[in-house]
């Protein structure tokens, strides 16, 4: 077993914080006093106004393994990192750490703006635990890594933020720790520098350094980590392989967006106490009053047309609405449109387009339903809008924005990491061939330069 090769073992770590400064001050003074006088800390229960920033977090990390820490803002990632770095002491549980901890949290710590880059290397190095001689020995290496040219002798206050981080990273890079903690610093510098950072981190991993990376960038976590930990409100929501955790994280984000759209819907509906329709655009709902739509639902096809909020990747669905026709309408048409989180009207499903031709519809109640057997929406959250129009009239008889929402879950058979903003998945077949001689082949073959 690899059991004896762990470098970090966290068992039931918990940490509580106060919400307001006033309470924080009062509790702080009280705790200080009780420690000094009675020599013990107060109970582990929450006092009024306190919350668990971290609760019962346990995990183990082996030598050379890397862990991606994800979660929404305030889920406890930074708190956990600070506990691992020995800055916060836990309120419950314990963490055992084997080896020297390097923290890219300390990037550029102690940099004095008036000092030159070179001078600051010594300051930052000292704070990371290096003597002057250690730094003298590695100065060339550091300067080469930072690659700041003659700016190294300019005061740091004239540096761009990118240059600042490059220098900080270069100093941290030389410390070759057994455990490295990284908090959202990889997306800096130009592409060359970013690549250099990743190369360096992979080299460290191969040598046996355990890495913990906190990031909101799924790409960064995916690039570097073997394992993942999804924190939610201070607790471990999912732990496991990096794919599983990132899937859960993406689903969680999509679910958050779904909840937001639901909340907007319900708050607007609550704000309307009359059932009159506005005959202008601009609101969430409006129309001429000839026709009303009551319920719009997303139905799962798999589960005998049950109303649902989440669909599997690629899973077919149906949209259904109850329509109340007040006065007879000549050739009405029904249109569902779909919004993604960042884009409006990414899809439109129109009854006329899809071939449903209606003659005059008399007053009464009807159900309109469209079945979509295949869909290729990317995982994420989507909003459904509904409209009733009339053939020959370029105006809405009725419109209702954000009438329903649904979420497409991450697929389990493939991992879609590449582009968070994409809304449509297009399955394709890639090929990759060398271009023979100087005859260029047309089509989709990618150019490839063989390393000689």
């Amino acid at each position, binding site marked *: 077993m690899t059991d004896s090769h762990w470098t970090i073992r966290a068992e039931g770590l918990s940490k509580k914080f106060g919400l307001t400064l006033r309470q924080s001050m009062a509790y702080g003074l009280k705790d200080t006093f009780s*420690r000094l006088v009675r020599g013990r*800390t107060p109970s582990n229960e929450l006092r009024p106004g306190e919350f668990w920033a971290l609760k019962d977090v346990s995990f183990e990390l082996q030598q050379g393994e890397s862990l991606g820490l994800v979660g929404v803002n305030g889920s406890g990632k930074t708190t956990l990192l600070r506990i691992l770095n020995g800055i916060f002491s*836990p309120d419950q549980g*314990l963490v*055992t750490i084997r080896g020297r901890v390097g923290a890219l949290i*300390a990037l550029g*710590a102690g940099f004095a703006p008036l000092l030159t880059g070179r001078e600051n290397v010594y300051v930052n190095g000292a*704070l990371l635990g290096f003597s002057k001689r250690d730094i003298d020995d590695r100065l060339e290496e550091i300067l080469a890594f930072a690659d700041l040219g003659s700016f190294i002798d300019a005061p740091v206050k004239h540096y761009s933020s990118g240059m600042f981080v490059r220098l900080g990273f270069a100093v941290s890079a030389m410390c070759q720790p057994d455990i490295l903690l990284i908090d959202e610093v990889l997306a800096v510098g130009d592409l060359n520098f970013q690549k250099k950072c990743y190369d360096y981190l992979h080299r460290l991993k191969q040598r046996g350094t355990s890495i913990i990376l906190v990031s909101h960038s799924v790409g960064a976590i995916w690039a570097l980590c073997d394992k993942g930990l999804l924190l939610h409100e201070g607790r471990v929501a999912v732990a496991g392989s990096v794919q599983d955790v990132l899937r859960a994280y993406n689903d969680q984000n999509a679910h958050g967006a779904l909840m937001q759209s639901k909340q907007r819907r319900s708050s607007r509906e609550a704000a309307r106490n009359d059932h009159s329709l506005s005959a202008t655009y601009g609101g969430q709902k409006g129309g001429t009053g000839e026709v009303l739509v009551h319920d719009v639902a997303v139905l799962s096809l798999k589960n005998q047309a049950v109303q649902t909020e989440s669909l599997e990747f690629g899973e077919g669905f149906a949209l259904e609405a109850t329509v109340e026709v007040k006065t007879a309408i000549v050739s009405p048409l029904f249109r569902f449109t779909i919004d993604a989180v960042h884009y409006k009207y990414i899809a439109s499903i129109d009854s006329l387009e899809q071939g449903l031709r209606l003659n005059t519809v008399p007053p009464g109640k009807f159900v309109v339903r469209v079945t979509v057997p295949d869909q290729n929406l990317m995982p994420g959250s989507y909003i459904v809008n509904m409209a009733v129009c009339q053939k020959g009239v370029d105006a809405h008889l009725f419109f209702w924005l954000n009438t329903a929402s649904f979420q497409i879950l991450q697929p389990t058979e493939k991992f879609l990491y590449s582009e968070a903003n994409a809304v449509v998945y297009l399955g394709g077949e890639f090929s990759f061939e060398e271009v023979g001689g100087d005859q260029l082949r047309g089509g989709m073959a990618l150019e490839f330069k063989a390393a000689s």
Partner: protein
Amino acid sequence: MRSISELPVRVFSARIPSGNIASSLTRVVQEVWTTRGVIWRLFARDFTVHLRQKLLGLLWAFLGPIIGAASFVFLNYAGVLNPGNLTMPYPLFLFVGMTLWGLFTSVITVISGGLLTHSDLVLRTNIPKVTLVLSGTANVLYLQLVNLVILLILFIFYGVVPSWWILMFPLMVIPLMALALGIGLVLAVIAVMARDVTAMVTTVLNLVMFITPVLYARPVGHALLQRVIDANPLTYLIDGPRRLVFLGTMESAPAFAVASIFCFVVLALGIHAFYLVQDKVAERL
């Protein structure tokens, strides 16, 4: 890569930092010694920064005390400062007193604000907190060295020959430093929770100066005031070394010894208190 068994093991847990005063004292010595380079580097950093982009540069360190001393001399010539029968020139007497008092208060101020000044480093590095707090004293000591130089100039100016005890002067101020460190360390952790504590202490210290013979010499006319002054350990810690420098004797040597012991007890308690609470500090910053 070293094999896993060679790696140093550290445990962070919820248990209260255990230990008695002795273990706290061992720890402080150990931590300060292993991180002495950091103290030096931070001092060098602040010192260099202080000199950058300044026309007068290093002169600034001397300018303040020189103007202070000059004003004493001027007031003395003008006849305003004339505290009666002293066997030494009053400006000299005053300068020594003010230097000692300044040392005491500035150490307290610097130490008690130490964690707040370095909050960024507390939150981002794992340098021992005591190191960060103590690093501020380097600058205070440097300024005191400057003061000593100016003191020598003043001695020459007045043609006064100090006693040989002046060589012992740096040793004589150690108890005063210890007291200031002890008080400062306790205040440092409290100041993190309640930010106005340092301001309160500065105000109180201004009042304490009046019951300490800094500006005047003992004995004073008022009986009750005299008793308060006699009970104040600072009296012996400041007036003692001063008399020794000028007169070569210290009339209240036993009291100085007792006061010194008191100072080291305060220091030990201060260090212990600091270590008991320090792990709760970062989250309040």
